[in-house]
C-alpha cells in the first residue's frame, strides 16, 4: 500500500498514459522553474499532436523548444514566444497553431480550472484581438470579456522541495506559473530538486498542498539562464 506516497521510480512512469493529441499544462516562466526533465521525457517518448499551455515556449534547444523541433506540438497557448526562431518559422508557415493569451488571463485560466470555475470575466483584452468573438458583459460601466478556464490532461510542474506526500515548496521566482499548473492537471506530475519524508516540511511553509499532486520524482536540473545580467562589485 502506498497511501499518500506520490513518488514514482522513473521519468517513464511519471508520464505513463501521456498520449498523442493530449493537452499539457506546463509551469515555468522563460527558462526559470521549468520541468526540464519531464520535457525531455516527452521528447524521448515522441508523443505528437500536443496542445501545450505555458507562458513561453523555451528556446530553440532547451525547455519546450525541444518539442517544437521534433514537431510534437500542434497548438500552443502562451503569452510570449519571442525567443525562439523555430517557433516563429512554424507559426508563420502555419504548421503550428498559436493562441496568444495575456499573461494574467493565462494564469487565471489555470487557477480557475483547478478551482472548478469554468470561465471568468476580465477587462484584460477587451476591445483587442484577444476579445474578438468572446462574450462581453458590463459591470459598473466597464466592459469585460468572458474567458474560459483550461484543464490539462497532464500538468508538468517543477518544485524546489517536496515531501513524499507531494507537498511542494518553490524557490524564488521559479514559483511563477507552477502553483496554478499543479492544480489544473487531470494528472499532475511534479519533479523536485529534493524529496524529503512526509512530516519534515513545515506545514506553514507549503506552497502547493499534496492533494493536487499525483506523481512525484526527484531530478537534477541544468537551470539554464536566459539573460545573464550582472553588475560589477562596487557598482550601484
Amino acid at each position: 500500500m502506498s497511501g499518500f506516497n506520490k513518488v514514482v521510480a522513473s521519468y517513464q512512469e511519471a508520464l505513463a498514459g501521456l498520449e498523442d493529441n493530449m493537452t499539457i499544462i506546463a509551469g515555468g516562466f522563460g527558462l526559470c522553474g521549468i520541468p526540464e526533465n519531464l520535457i525531455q521525457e516527452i521528447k524521448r517518448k515522441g508523443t505528437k499532436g500536443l496542445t501545450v499551455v505555458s507562458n513561453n515556449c523555451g528556446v530553440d534547444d532547451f525547455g519546450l523548444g525541444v518539442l517544437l523541433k521534433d514537431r510534437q506540438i500542434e497548438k500552443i497557448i502562451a503569452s510570449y514566444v519571442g525567443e525562439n526562431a523555430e517557433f516563429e518559422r512554424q507559426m508563420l508557415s502555419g504548421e503550428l497553431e498559436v493562441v496568444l493569451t495575456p499573461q494574467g488571463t493565462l494564469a487565471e485560466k489555470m487557477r480557475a480550472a483547478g478551482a472548478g470555475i469554468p470561465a471568468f470575466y476580465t477587462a484584460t483584452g477587451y476591445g483587442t484581438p484577444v476579445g474578438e468573438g468572446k462574450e462581453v458583459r458590463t459591470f459598473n460601466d466597464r466592459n469585460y470579456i468572458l474567458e474560459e478556464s483550461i484543464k490539462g490532461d497532464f500538468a508538468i510542474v517543477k518544485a524546489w522541495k517536496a515531501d513524499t506526500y507531494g507537498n511542494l515548496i518553490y524557490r524564488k521566482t521559479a514559483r511563477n506559473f507552477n502553483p496554478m499548473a499543479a492544480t489544473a492537471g487531470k494528472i499532475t506530475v511534479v519533479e523536485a530538486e529534493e524529496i524529503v519524508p512526509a512530516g519534515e516540511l513545515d506545514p506553514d511553509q507549503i506552497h502547493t498542498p499534496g492533494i493536487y499532486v499525483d506523481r512525484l520524482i526527484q531530478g537534477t536540473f541544468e537551470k539554464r539562464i536566459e539573460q545573464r545580467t550582472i553588475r560589477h562589485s562596487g557598482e550601484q
Partner: protein
Amino acid sequence: MALTREQMAMRVAQELQDGFYVNLGIGIPTLVANYVPSNMEVMLQSENGLLGMGQFPTEEEIDADLINAGKQTVTVAKGASIFSSAESFAMIRGGHVDLTVLGAFEVDVHGNIASYMIPGKLIKGMGGAMDLVAGADNIIVTMTHASKHGESKLLSQCSLPLTGKGCIKKILTDLAYIEIIDGKFHLLEHAPGVEIEQIKALTAGELVVSEHVKEMNI
C-alpha cells in the same frame, strides 16, 4: 533637441512618489529605476512574481531561480516578496499597482494603445502588457514621437492591433509630455530646445496647445 532615452527616463522618474509600487516595462521604462530620487522609497513589481526587485547581481550572487519579467537575473530589494503569477496579476488586475510605465508602437486620441504586434512582421506576444493597461489607472507610455521615417506614432486612430482600449492618459515622448483629455492630445510640456511647431507637425492626432505649455525640466 529630442530627449535621449536616459532623459526620457529621468522625466518619467519625476512622476514617482514616495511609497509607490511601480511596474516598469522593457526598454526605456526599465531605465526609470536608475533615476528614483534618493529621498524616496519606491518598490518595483516584476510580473513574473516579485515585488521589490533589486539591482542586477554580482557574478557571485547570480541565481537562475531569481529573474525579472525580462528574464534577466536580478536580486531582491529590502522588504521584497515573491509569489505566483496568479497573485502577481491579482495585484495588477486588481488595480493595486500605483504606476505602470510601458512602451508602445502607437497611441491614439481615444487612449487606445498598440504595442504587441505588427501583423506579418513581429509577432512575439503581449506578455503582461494587456493586463497592465487594463488594470492600472496611472499609466505612462514612453515612446519616440515619430518613427525613423518621420511617421507620427500619436494618431487619431491606431492602425495596429490594440493592446488596450481607452486606457492611456499620459505619454512621454522624446519631444513632449502629453495628456489625453476628451479625445484630444493636450501638450503639457515640450523637451528643451524643441519647437512646438515641430511637435505639431509630428502629431497626427488632434493636438491642443494651450498658452500654459512648459519646457521640461531635465
